[in-house]
């Protein structure tokens, strides 16, 4: 349930784009890769990647999940770290692939793959020891902690450490920061009314901080939270942390 002990700095890393970023937030994926490239790494984005298979696995369709997971395992073949700009997808691949493939002929391969999966902000902090030079205007932001980043990948303070490096950014913590936003994949539509109650409370907590932007490391949460913010007509923008960090360092 935790990240590997500090690996040495690699020359090359894989980037796993996630299916939500692929369709809805490609700029967050590009920003994640750019942050890595700026640190001198070679970034490989295999074109045959698709989805971590969490949606099917969490719905109880394990055969379907395995078929899609297997495609990722067969795609990311080199022994490079697999950097993921999502705690949730990283958690699926790192903590659940071994169980998903238990008893299968490729169980060993799945375990080896899982061992190479790292979450982006953890990688930036612990492996690259990144130093960010903020070029943006002063701004107040708040952070939304993703459940799976915290509880499956052990990523808690790393994103906030990155935000605190930005001299022009004031980070205000929201009430119930570590509570689920109510996305939960199919939960958001299967139990839409409960999900609505959860995200409405989340938006209220975010608005109380007075921040003009909410930053998150997971696009599932972000899609849920910004969708509710926009529907409520609140003047708060949502940003994936990779995109936000890159914007700040470019002085955008």
């Amino acid at each position: 349930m935790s990240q590997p002990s500090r690996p040495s700095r690699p020359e090359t890393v894989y980037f796993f784009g996630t299916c939500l970023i692929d369709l809805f937030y490609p700029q967050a994926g590009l920003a994640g890769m750019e942050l890595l490239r700026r640190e001198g790494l070679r970034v490989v984005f295999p074109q045959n990647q698709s989805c971590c298979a969490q949606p099917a696995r969490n719905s109880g369709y394990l055969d379907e999940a395995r078929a899609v997971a297997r495609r990722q395992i067969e795609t990311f073949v080199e022994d490079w770290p697999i950097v993921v700009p999502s705690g949730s997808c990283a958690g699926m691949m790192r903590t659940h692939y071994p169980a998903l493939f238990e008893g299968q002929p490729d169980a060993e391969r799945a375990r080896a793959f899982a061992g190479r999966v790292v979450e982006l902000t953890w990688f930036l902090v612990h492996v690259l020891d990144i130093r960010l030079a903020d070029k943006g205007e002063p701004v107040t932001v708040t952070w939304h902690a993703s459940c799976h980043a915290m509880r499956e990948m052990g990523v808690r303070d790393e994103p906030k450490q990155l935000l605190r490096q930005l001299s022009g950014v004031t980070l205000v913590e929201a009430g119930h920061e570590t509570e689920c936003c109510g996305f939960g994949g199919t939960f958001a539509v299967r139990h839409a009314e409960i999900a609505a109650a959860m995200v409405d409370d989340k938006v209220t907590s975010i608005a109380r901080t007075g921040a003009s932007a909410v930053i998150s490391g997971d696009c599932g949460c972000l899609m849920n939270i910004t969708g509710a913010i926009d529907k409520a007509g609140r003047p708060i923008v949502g940003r994936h942390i990779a995109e936000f960090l890159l914007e700040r360092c470019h002085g955008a």
Partner: protein
Amino acid sequence: MALETMPDGPVVENPAMDKGPDFTQRAHAALIDPGLRRNFRRAMDGLMEKRAAQFADPVAWAALRERGAQARAAALARLPDLLEELEARCAANGIQVHWAETIEDGNAIVLGILNHHRARQVVKGKSMVSEEMHLNDHLAAHGITAIESDLGEYIIQLAGELPSHIVMPCIHKNKDQIATLLAANIPGLGYTEDVAALTAAARRILRDRFAAADAGISGVNFAVAETGTLVLIENEGNGRLSTTLPPLHIAITGIEKVVERLDDIPPLLALLPRSATGQPITTYVNMITSPRKPGEKDGPAAVHLILLDNGRSRVFADAQLRDTLRCIRCGACINHCPVYARVGGHSYGSVYPGPIGKILTPQIAGLDVAGDLPHASTLCNACVEVCPVKIPIADILVRLRQEAAQPAGAATPAVKGAGSRRHIAEALVWTVWRWVYAWPWLHHRATRLLARIGNWIPARAPLLRAWTRNRTRPHFAGQTLHERARRAGIDHE
């Protein structure tokens, strides 16, 4: 309905699994009740804060939790042997042991014992297993009055309601509601929100009940196989009075509550109250090992232990699902569940609400009856993080979703009602999803197309309609990350 004039015990609504409204409908009723949501939120926030203060040192917490998990896992690994050892030790100590396979068996055994002792007035300590058995109703139907003596249970018994939490049964009520209820039911008590006055009034009534009771019924927190000891923890002294004052004591528990050794009790007691209410220890820790012995001044003349199965053997038989039975009923998973905080305990339609209820109830009642519960979770893992005995609740939820959705037909499915929730349309969606996401050729074409036309999907499309009830629709990017990465010249192999 004054307590003094109740004929055969208070009227309790039929607490059987509600066949009418499902979880979603019950949750709707709770969600539109702002007072209820406030009560739960405030109470859960307080409980989370108190628990966190008890486990401030993460290293100590991890070590203690490991011991607790080990104790429970070790007990379950030897469950059949330990139950026999428990029975033998109890018998040697003078406690009569009864085995109940179903709740009907359990109710019949309790009634039989009470009738044998001509007991008509019963006082009860808190027992979730007796709630699971709907014991009060059964006894009332046979002319026996069972009065709940735990203050929370007493309050909901007066209100004719079911517990909304396994540790704090009336947590859904606020002070005004309790004050109004007690004022209407306790003669001589006017409306007051003074907690000390309310408690004193309830105590006055209950003391008479203890003194008059023919029998006491209690639950059990842990049953120690090594010594035949029944451990019962509580804060109000009502558990001690229920188990020592009347001449007959009947303890009821599930077969999973057994532990190997007396040495297992200290770590488990260090975990349970701190996880439950943020207390370092409960006010009372009762350890009952025999009836009154010759020369002793108090204690019941007869003690009976009822071990209820009610589907637990089936849970035990599956290596993964067995972890469900580690539960020590602290309720920490409930206190930390963001879904429970919104919908409250009654939405779950079962005596075990929240995360533990979502995994336990469908296994006991069957997925055909309670198959909607495993889906009532975002799999946020807040429960997993605080469980003092490391039950992998989220993994078991996924397993139950899988059992519910698999094609029916296994001769002896691991879970009752397996396959009962399979929907062809849903299965087809996942088949299509699999082809799209497992085949790059198809995936590239499908996602390129979707990125371009997705924003024209009609707003009334089923999933989109549910999504947009309180959110704007997600915006498809026009081009996929795959395309943009290729265009940006990023290496792809």
